[in-house]
């Protein structure tokens, strides 16, 4: 009973109640997050393959192997950043356009809003499979349409850049509604009178957008960009379902690289090292992004 007494002595009643409330969450977090991360971290310093499960300690050798891997440096990292940049920029632009269009009242506004939000409810894997069939070179609807319009059918997923474009397209399709939803909420929370003042001041719609809407919406935009960038960095499912990283690893993103190394080539050591490297990269990128965008916001205020 001594630990009970110790608990009672060191914490007040309210604190003990709070500890009780967070205990389940902490337990789950430790068991399913902290422990696996620790195991993964430990594995990244070992030579651990399914064919050679001795788990010899090798220090930073696995990290060096990842960072000197031409596939990682020349394909995976550029791909990941390019994907992140393209997906976030395009979704932000279209999401903003949609939000602006939805922000003015019109007939059937609610219906249109609901329909636009549907992609948010589609599982990414399903969306990816859908897209894969649409762009299938023999049976896909895209080629059919292209042919009726007099174009040449293409093997979309065989070429690196068209496959990459389809991945970005799928991701944008999934995430534009999310941007639209958040930006719309932001737009609707903006005070009306500066816009009325601008209307009376004779401001063109473009100047209103450029000098009022964007600056006033900046906090929301920053949060959207940071969240989505970090999220896009670890995209796995749609790439896996669309191309599996192919053709010939040409569309491989960082998460696919880590997964394949660990669970396809069964090199747990190197896979863990890749995963942790990626984790560190996105940590730095996320912080930098937040710093830069927040600085932009402060300067403009």
């Amino acid at each position: 009973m001594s630990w009970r007494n110790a608990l009672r002595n060191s914490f007040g009643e309210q604190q003990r109640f709070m500890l009780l409330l967070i205990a389940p969450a902490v337990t789950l977090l430790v068991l399913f997050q902290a422990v696996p991360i620790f195991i993964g971290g430990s594995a990244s310093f070992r030579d651990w393959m399914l064919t050679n499960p001795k788990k010899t300690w090798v220090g930073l050798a696995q990290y060096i192997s990842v960072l000197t891997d031409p596939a990682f440096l020349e394909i995976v990292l550029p791909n990941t950043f390019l994907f992140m940049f393209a997906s976030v920029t395009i979704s932000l632009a279209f999401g903003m356009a949609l939000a602006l269009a939805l922000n003015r009242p019109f007939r059937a506004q609610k219906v249109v809003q609901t329909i636009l939000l549907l992609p948010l409810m589609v599982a990414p894997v399903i969306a990816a499979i859908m897209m894969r069939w649409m762009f299938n070179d023999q049976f896909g609807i895209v080629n059919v349409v292209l042919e009726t319009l007099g174009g040449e059918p293409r093997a979309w997923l065989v070429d690196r850049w068209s496959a990459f474009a389809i991945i970005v397209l799928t991701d944008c399709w999934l995430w534009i509604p999310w941007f639209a939803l958040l930006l719309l909420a932001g737009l609707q929370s903006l005070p009306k009178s500066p816009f009325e003042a601008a209307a009376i001041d004779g401001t063109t719609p473009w100047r209103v957008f450029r000098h009022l809407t964007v600056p006033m919406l900046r906090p929301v935009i920053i949060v959207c960009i940071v969240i989505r960038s970090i999220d896009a960095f670890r995209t796995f499912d749609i790439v896996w379902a669309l191309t599996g990283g192919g053709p010939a690893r040409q569309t491989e993103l960082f998460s696919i690289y880590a997964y394949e190394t660990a669970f396809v080539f069964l090199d747990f050591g190197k896979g863990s090292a890749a995963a942790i490297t990626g984790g560190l990269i996105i940590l730095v990128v996320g912080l930098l992004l937040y710093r830069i965008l927040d600085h932009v916001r402060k300067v403009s205020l």
Partner: protein
Amino acid sequence: MSEIVLTKLNKHYGGMHHAVRNIDLTIGDKEFITLVGPSGCGKSTTLRMIAGLEEITSGEIRIGGTLVNHLPPRDRDVAMVFQNYALYQHMSVFDNLAFGLRNKKVPEAEIKKAIRNAADILGLGELMQRKPRQLSGGQQQRVALGRCIVRNPKVFLFDEPLSNLDAKLRIQMRVEIKRLRARVPTTSVFVTHDQVEAMTLGDRVVVMKDGYIQQCGTPLQVYGEPANKFVAGFIGSPSMNFFEVGIHAQDGELIAQTPFLRARVSERYKAALAAWNGRTVILGVRPEHLRVNASDVDPIGKVEIEVIEQLGSEILLETRAGDLSMTVARVNPQLPVAAGDVIQLSVPSDQLHFFDPETESAIR
């Protein structure tokens, strides 16, 4: 010339709410009009329709002879000051002032000149590089005024611009707006719910209620000759006292009488009130017209003092006679009175107001 003419102006919100009803109003060139009334009376809606921020359900608005019904706000050449200032928070004061001119692609040199001029008038010189949230409420409202001045529009519109300021600042800004008016005479419409602002600023005061214009006249007209009971009660502070009185003829005079009060009708109202002989009307007396224990004017009755409010410059008395309660203002602060005292009230008979109990319009 920038005369504003409103003809049969109406505004419905949906099927039910009729915010503005058949407003006919002509605002002369360089005239300063105040729209006043309780909240929901349609004054702000009327202003916003003139600005073009609100669609017109029916009727016409002409500014300087041009029909503007379907013109967007930017083509009406009006400027507006908002209750919450509506400054562009992320821009400096200078950029706020320059924004409207840059919209019109005015050369920067001219913009600078216009802003320097406005800054001189409003004393904004040192604040140019500040952001609006670094300014006090009064300074922000001055910037908002400046934003209007630099554009040199045909019409100034004010939507309760002083309501967000504290009482002292409000009085200061009121004077400043008057001063501004003298330097930059422009046709102006000023919306307020404060009758003091309406009276002090307006060349003419438009009193509104339930979407209708109740009365439109100079401050002296709406105070001295209110068109109906609502205007009489709304204009003036403290509010006019009202009570029902019977009218009867006696010795060639008309007498307005209740069990507790009795007043002689002056020559001014005699003709109009003759028709009411033997019937009941509503009598209105302004608190400031009542005199205590005066010997030189007609006494109307005795009342008991319930509450005394000593203001230093005057005393306000809440008095009672039977079931009538009456407020008395402008009582000499040196007058030795105490709660419970019975005093004699009197009032010059030409300062009585009579209203039809049915329609509430003035009898005169």
